[in-house]
């Protein structure tokens, strides 16, 4: 197990290198200038030049890159131009919001998806099957941010049950937090719910057609027992494999959902930083988000290796 972990961590290194390189290059191609934003719209060229010099923006690109990597190796992602704090601090204090949003959405997607999938599989070829799969397919096809707007229109504006946006920290009010996360998580979950539902259905159908299930039923085991004890357990294994991919999609989707619901997560931080030309935040935000994603994938691999020893020993 340790060897497997080490191998996985090692193989993440080149990925992280490419990630850091891309994060740097993106900034290099950005037009516009942070100095106008810092100094104000009516600042003079001299003032802006002074800020450029202070921030090292007047140096050649290669030198900026060397400095970026030099600091990166010491774990220093630099200082935000505008937030008055270090990038690491700024990103890490928002990461929990993004991660919890993605996590709730993941749980919702899996729960709802598995439910739809089971319904469809046990009532194979019935209207329930078709209905569930239509919902799943619809979930896959609608833009999640648009769905978010519809949810806001209905549940926040229309019915007034839930807030239209904004974030309440759990430390302040647990109920407030849950209320502020419900619609965003639902909007974010919809797409992946579709994915899970379809996967559950097809793997359930496959498992249920296999000999041992048929044997179990033939031996007089109750249908429910067969479905939930045997079929479902085996059908869920493939879902674990896509949790990594799903996490990625959810983290990416959270960027947009956060800005629809005004949640102060990493996504909104990055988008705000793009608008404000806060280069270090963009770089650091991209880097940390990608690194989180890589790390989650390693965890998923570990979990999978634990479930299925062939993965960890073989390959």
């Amino acid at each position, binding site marked *: 197990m340790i060897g497997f972990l080490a191998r996985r961590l090692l193989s993440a290194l080149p990925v992280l290198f490419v990630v850091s390189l891309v994060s740097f290059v993106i900034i290099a191609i950005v037009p*516009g200038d942070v100095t106008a934003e810092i100094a104000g*719209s009516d600042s003079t060229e001299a003032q802006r030049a002074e800020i450029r010099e202070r921030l090292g923006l007047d140096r050649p690109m290669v030198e900026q890159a060397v400095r970026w990597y030099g600091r990166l190796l010491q774990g220093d992602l630099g200082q935000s131009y505008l937030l008055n704090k270090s990038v690491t601090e700024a990103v890490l204090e928002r990461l929990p919001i993004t991660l919890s949003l993605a996590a709730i959405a993941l749980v919702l997607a899996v729960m709802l998806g598995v439910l739809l999938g089971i319904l469809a599989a046990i009532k194979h070829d019935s209207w329930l099957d078709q209905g569930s799969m239509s919902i799943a397919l619809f979930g896959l096809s609608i833009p999640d941010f648009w769905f978010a707007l519809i949810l806001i229109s209905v549940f926040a504006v229309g019915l007034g049950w839930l807030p239209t*946006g904004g974030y309440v920290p759990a430390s302040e009010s647990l109920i407030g937090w849950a209320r502020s996360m419900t619609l965003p998580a639902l909007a974010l979950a919809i797409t992946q719910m579709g994915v899970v539902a379809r996967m559950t259905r097809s793997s359930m159908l496959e498992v249920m057609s296999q000999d041992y299930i048929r044997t179990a039923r033939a031996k007089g085991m109750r249908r429910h027992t067969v479905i939930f004890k045997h079929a479902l357990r085996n059908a869920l294994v493939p879902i674990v494999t896509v949790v990594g991919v799903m996490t990625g999609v959810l983290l990416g989707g959270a960027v947009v959902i956060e*800005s629809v619901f005004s949640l102060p997560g990493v996504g909104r931080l990055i988008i705000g930083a*793009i608008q404000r030309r806060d280069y270090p935040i963009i770089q650091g935000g991209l880097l940390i988000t990608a690194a989180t994603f890589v790390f989650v994938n390693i965890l998923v691999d570990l979990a999978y290796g634990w479930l299925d020893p062939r993965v960890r020993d073989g390959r």
Partner: protein
Amino acid sequence: MAKTGRLGRARHMCLAAAAAAFLGLSSATALAQTAGGDLVVVQSSNPPSLDAMVTSSQASRNITMNIYEPLFGFSEKIQPIPILAESVEISADGKSYRIPLRQGVKFHNGKEMTAEDVKASLDRYVKHGATQSMLKPVEKIEITGPNEVTLTLKEATPTFLEAFASPRAPAVIIPAEEASKGPNEIEFIGTGPYKFVEYVPDSHVKLARFEDYSANEAFEGIDGFGGKKTAYLDTVTFRVIPEPGAAVAALETGEVQLLEQLPVPTARRLASNENIEIYENMPWAFLTFIFNMKEAPGDNPKFREAVQVALNNEEVMAIATEGLFQLYHGWMYEGSTYDAGDVGKEYYNLADADRAKALLKEAGYNNEPFSILTDSTIPEHGKAAVVIGEQLKAVGINAVINQVDWPTALNIRLQDQGWNGWTLMMGIEPYLGPAALISTLTGEAPHFRANDEQLDALYKELIATDSVEGRKAVFAEIQKRLYAFFGVIKVGETGLMQAARADVKGFKPFRFPRVYDVWIEKE
């Protein structure tokens, strides 16, 4: 209210302030204020900085003007009044400004404000202030007493005090030890009625009542940026909600109490809601269209004239402001001191396609692309650009929209190439008066890139003229000149809609949301 004649001229400030204190019969006591509570104010964007003097962003000003105070600021009637200064005494040659300070004023850190703090703050402004040109006439800043500073100007500048009182990037007073720090590196310590608690970007800025606030007893109530301020609320939260829809819904449910701005159609809908009070500020800003006079085709005055006569200002304004606008050709608000009357009216809101086409022909326009720079951050900018673009296409101009975000737009428009026209709302400049407005069109970096020599000369004359009558005459010439070379088009005047819960009392709309002298009425 004994506001009339309180501070007509800066020179009489000392006297007038005393008179006001005498005349002041309390108006504030008529209503029973309740202390306590948290007021949640919503604005659409993050303050780029809470270091008040380094930024001229309105998102910052909205908050910082409740935390910090300058020596002088504008009254409700746009006259400079003392805030942290006691008064000002101007020497006969107009070069020396002796400024006694109010005594016993405490900073949020508990220390008392001294002349050292004031000098250090002004020195910092000279170095880092976002509108440092306001201190350009100043030769030296000296401490001339434990509670007094004296500013010596290089030459007599009649408009100095008005410029110095400008709230754009206010010259606020902070403790000397903070003033030695670089931009955005200070602790946010001021003398205002509310003190800074925390800033969580993309979420909120929290302020709390400053219990030791030293109110300015020379006034009997708030007046513009100054006056006697009272903090009733325990805390104030400035929440950042970029989406107007979300902000409005939060107001409707009572999650928040005050919207710094809301869409006009929404305001109309909410007008019938008895839980919500709508505040209409009209006029609030100029919407302008600025040419790059260094780049073809905008370098040709005939071409610019063609655009001027082609524009259907009413359509642009109706769409850009969602119906909250007024049309006026003047470069100062109608009926205000410097209003130049009918000068230039014959060029305004013509929508004359034939004349525009003829002018384009005369200009030798040959379908060169005309790139309109605008941003998505301020909706009026983007919408106006789209409508202007369509109108110009209709007269045969090859208009293309370049919509970027606000910082990028600010950067692009500082370059001589890469843009031809730019939409800009001028909120604070027309409010501050002719000098503030015209200074953006002249000098080192005029909005339209190339200098118009006549306009530059008129601006110099304007700021050197010592009488209002004289300045009015100069300003009429300026307006005439603006309608002769067409470097910038005044599209129209926009309003601003604000809204608050009905239980929010004492709120008086102004250039920033004043959260002092505001209280929440308890049922």
